[in-house]
């Protein structure tokens, strides 16, 4: 590997990204940031892309795509590339990007400057979600405090809505004010904003990149495994004692992950891995897993944007799933027939099962619909929703049967998914 541009040694163990994180409501200053991580390194584009490739870093926005490949494909295209930092974070159960943008903005902006330089972009647009004035302020202050890096920043707040954070929806909003996905190809890296090749990256990915540029890819690989190197931010919510954002190494056993959130707050029933596009797994299976792509794939899961929702025994998984699919159906951008009509029908069907008023053959029809709508939207919204519902039907099959007989295992108490969109959890390492 090529020489690391900073003589400084990276931190041993954890935390990495969250090193020096202050109390809630505080934003790390540039001076504090440089004391902890050292100054922004000077590094050539090809050298950075080589380091990122060797590090094995993958995108942390949910698509899990190799970051170096994306950087390379934009860098090799001619014609004034653009960088968009996609901080929309429209997944209700995720708060890690808001944490990074609002409290560690210089780490995100470091990554943005390095990525922009590597692809030859002179401007970077940071797109954030609606209703986060503190994040906007933190980013504006951070941008103003930084020396001229040859990259200008524009910070844009977009509207709320699950699908508005999808990358083509972000670009469509920035170009035309329409926060809805577009038909691909062309993909953003081919033809994005103003017809230029556009690199769209998640804030956490850029933070990881900023540290790799400083401390090297071997350092990055000190944590995790060969297949899943490094650390990741995970937002844990639901039936745990202290919900929040935690930085953990890949390969961490699920039990240790829950222990980081001070453990379950009641006996466990199931885990939703990967957020609302994710997959339910029975806790008896989930607790034997490690946080690795291989382990998660063995139970049909992906980490997505690093969301873990813990369902306790006092809640009804079927009712919770009905509420989530109802939400997802309402969040369709309304452009594609299979999504508009399919998700509405699927949501009605799951609600009927939850209410115990479904036709005896309802499940067959529901699973035909979830199969049929896959791959038939412009974006992945129908696919994610279908995957979620299929896993719910599988994991809560007993509950479906009970509800058919007008029974339910849960006390009518907790609705853990309800408060997820509030995002008021205290965040700790």
């Amino acid at each position: 590997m090529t020489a690391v541009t900073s003589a400084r040694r990276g931190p041993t163990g954890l935390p990495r990204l969250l090193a020096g994180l202050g109390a809630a409501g505080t934003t790390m200053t540039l001076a504090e940031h440089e004391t902890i991580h050292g100054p922004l390194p000077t590094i050539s584009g090809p050298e950075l892309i080589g380091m990122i490739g060797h590090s094995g870093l993958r995108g942390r926005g949910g698509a899990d795509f190799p970051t170096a490949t994306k950087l390379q494909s934009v860098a090799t295209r001619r014609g004034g590339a653009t960088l968009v930092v996609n901080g929309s974070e429209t997944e209700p159960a995720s708060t890690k990007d808001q944490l990074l943008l609002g409290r560690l903005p210089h780490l995100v902006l470091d990554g943005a400057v390095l990525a922009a330089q590597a692809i030859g972009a002179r401007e970077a647009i940071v797109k954030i979600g609606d209703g986060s004035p503190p994040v906007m302020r933190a980013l504006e202050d951070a941008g103003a405090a930084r020396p001229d890096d040859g990259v200008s920043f524009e910070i844009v707040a977009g509207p709320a809505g699950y699908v508005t954070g999808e990358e083509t929806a972000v670009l469509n909003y920035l170009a035309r004010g329409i926060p809805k996905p577009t038909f691909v190809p062309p993909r953003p890296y081919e033809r994005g904003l103003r017809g230029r090749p556009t690199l769209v990256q998640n804030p956490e990915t850029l933070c990881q990149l900023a540290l790799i540029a400083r401390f090297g890819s071997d350092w990055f690989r000190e944590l995790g495994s060969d297949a899943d190197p490094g650390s990741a931010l995970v937002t844990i919510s639901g039936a745990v004692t202290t919900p929040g954002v935690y930085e953990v190494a890949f390969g961490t056993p699920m039990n240790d992950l829950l222990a980081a959130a001070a453990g379950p707050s009641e006996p466990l029933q199931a885990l939703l891995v990967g957020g609302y596009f994710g997959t339910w797994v029975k806790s008896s299976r989930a607790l034997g897993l490690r946080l690795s792509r291989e382990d998660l794939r063995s139970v049909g899961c992906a980490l997505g944007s690093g969301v873990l929702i813990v369902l306790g025994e006092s809640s009804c998984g079927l009712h919770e799933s009905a509420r989530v699919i109802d939400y997802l159906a309402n969040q369709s951008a309304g452009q594609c027939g299979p999504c508009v009509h399919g998700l509405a029908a699927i949501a009605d069907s799951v609600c009927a099962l939850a209410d115990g008023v479904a036709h005896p053959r309802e499940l067959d029809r529901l699973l035909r619909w979830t199969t049929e709508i896959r791959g038939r939207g412009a974006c992945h919204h129908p696919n994610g929703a279908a995957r979620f519902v299929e896993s719910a039907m599988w994991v809560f099959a007993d509950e479906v049967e009970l509800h058919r007989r007008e029974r339910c295992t849960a006390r009518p108490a907790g609705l853990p998914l309800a408060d997820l969109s509030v995002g008021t959890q205290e965040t700790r390492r």
Partner: protein
Amino acid sequence: MSARLRVNPITCEAHGLCAELLPELVRLDDWGYPIIDESEVPPELLTLARRAADACPTLALILDEERGR
């Protein structure tokens, strides 16, 4: 030469002509939107596939024809 059939789901308005003209490759879902189970178009259906793509009122049915190398 290989040809693949796909649908732009944003412009598709469920007119259903594709399933009328090319039932070998296109069926409709419960709401009248096309489902293409196998996007590869066999040579004997190429003419019909071209006709179906041309006939789509919103030009949502797309036939990607790749020239042989």
